[in-house]
């Protein structure tokens, strides 16, 4: 049985950790330029691992799944940035050839986004302790600035820790998923499950973008157009 070759040395790990810190920062603290979106984070992670296309593909699916959530106020929502770095790099490292690593990467990306969401909540509690009450702070504007920047640094460290902790295990899991025997029926089931995941994610994401307005005829029109293009052999 061929053992998958995973080319990830300390240099790649460090680059991914730094990308994780940047995506965690970008997500909320600074500058919210959407480097943390799965489309970008997973593509960059895939690029670090030598396959930006694998990263993008994984990121596009995670993007659709994450579009169900929006960062509204104090609500808890999954954090896709560091999770996409882990998933994109793991899928690219596993060779991005079969459905096993793809399923593993998507599952890891989805699960780690939930973990990221919890860590954001925890950090918001930590920030409460970093900031004394306003009467104390008001006479010391420099301290407001210093503590604000400190909270941002903590955010970056949080992202680095998430990616640093989960990258190697994730690569092992996606690597192992290429080792096991995949019967045709198992492969067919995995493909079916991924197609249905994308389908329900797109439906729910479209409803989110509809923002209360019934836009399903447009949504179904788009889906039919996609099917016609596939039938004609245009596109992927």
């Amino acid at each position: 049985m061929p053992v998958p070759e995973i080319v990830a040395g300390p240099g790649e790990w460090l680059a991914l950790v730094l990308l994780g810190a940047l995506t965690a920062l970008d997500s909320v603290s600074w500058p919210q330029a959407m480097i943390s979106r799965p489309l970008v984070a997973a593509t960059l992670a895939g690029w670090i691992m030598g396959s930006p296309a694998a990263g993008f593909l994984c990121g596009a699916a995670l993007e659709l799944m994450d579009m169900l959530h929006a960062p509204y106020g104090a609500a808890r929502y999954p954090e896709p940035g560091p999770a996409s770095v882990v998933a994109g790099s793991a899928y690219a490292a596993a060779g991005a050839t079969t459905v096993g690593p793809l399923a593993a990467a998507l599952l890891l990306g989805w699960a780690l986004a939930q973990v990221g969401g919890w860590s954001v909540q925890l950090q918001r509690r930590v920030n409460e302790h970093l900031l004394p009450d306003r009467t104390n702070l008001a006479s010391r504007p420099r301290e407001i600035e210093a503590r604000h920047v400190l909270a941002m640094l903590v955010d970056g460290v949080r992202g680095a820790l998430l990616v640093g902790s989960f990258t190697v295990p994730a690569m092992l899991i996606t690597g192992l998923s290429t080792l096991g025997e995949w019967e045709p029926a198992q492969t067919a089931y995995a493909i079916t499950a991924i197609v249905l995941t994308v389908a329900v994610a797109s439906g729910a994401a479209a409803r989110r973008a509809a923002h209360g307005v019934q836009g399903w005829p447009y949504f179904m029109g788009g889906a039919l157009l996609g099917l016609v293009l596939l039938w004609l052999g245009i596109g992927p």
Partner: protein
Amino acid sequence: MTVRRRDLVAAWLRTFAVQGSWNYRTLIGTGISFVSLPLLRRIYSDDPEARRAAVERSLTPFNCHPYLSGMAAAALARVEMNEHPDTVERFRVALRGPLGRLGDQLVWAEWRPFCAMVGSLLFLFGLDPLLSAAVFLVGYNLGHVWLRVWGFRTGWDAGLQLGKVLQDSWLSVVAGKLRPVNQLLIGLAGPLLAARLTTGPLGAAAWPLMIVGGSLALYAYRWPTHGRRLAGVFLLSIPLIWWLT
């Protein structure tokens, strides 16, 4: 004291970090204070006690869309220059709801999905992955930075009149125009992405699967919370089925 251009630029640059100390006690209140400090230092440069009181007001709980935080900070600073502190506090409370709602509707619900779908579709039709991600990033941030600039300028110019400006705002008009386009693009991306992700031995089962997928997509459209749960169930079932069979 007259506010200089460099103070305005410094405050605007700080809006990119407005959520840096997000917490459940003041939400982005401390961030708004962080953004406002260059302006408050200038406005109250010759009155330390008034400055301390203004900084304390700026530290009260506040929340709005981060891209429109500059609009809030600039308008509040302008009101600090001309109005009584009670007016500042009332105005601050009045700003929270509209700035959050408008930004959420335009940016999170429409502009971001629109740019993401354009980037995804370009990749699915053959564009290089790094270029596709760059198209998303650059396109999105053209709108993002422009909104921050427009918001800050509008807040500074309008001051206490900001409510009237927001009533006639183009923000919700643009969001309304993007809505059907986004529905179409997300619908289009669904089957194309599914086909690309699952290039494999489906054979004759591919079309029935697409029909089931389409039905489930409509179900998720009607009940998005169920759809979100279903996505998790489908993903979790893959290793389970693999392990059990």
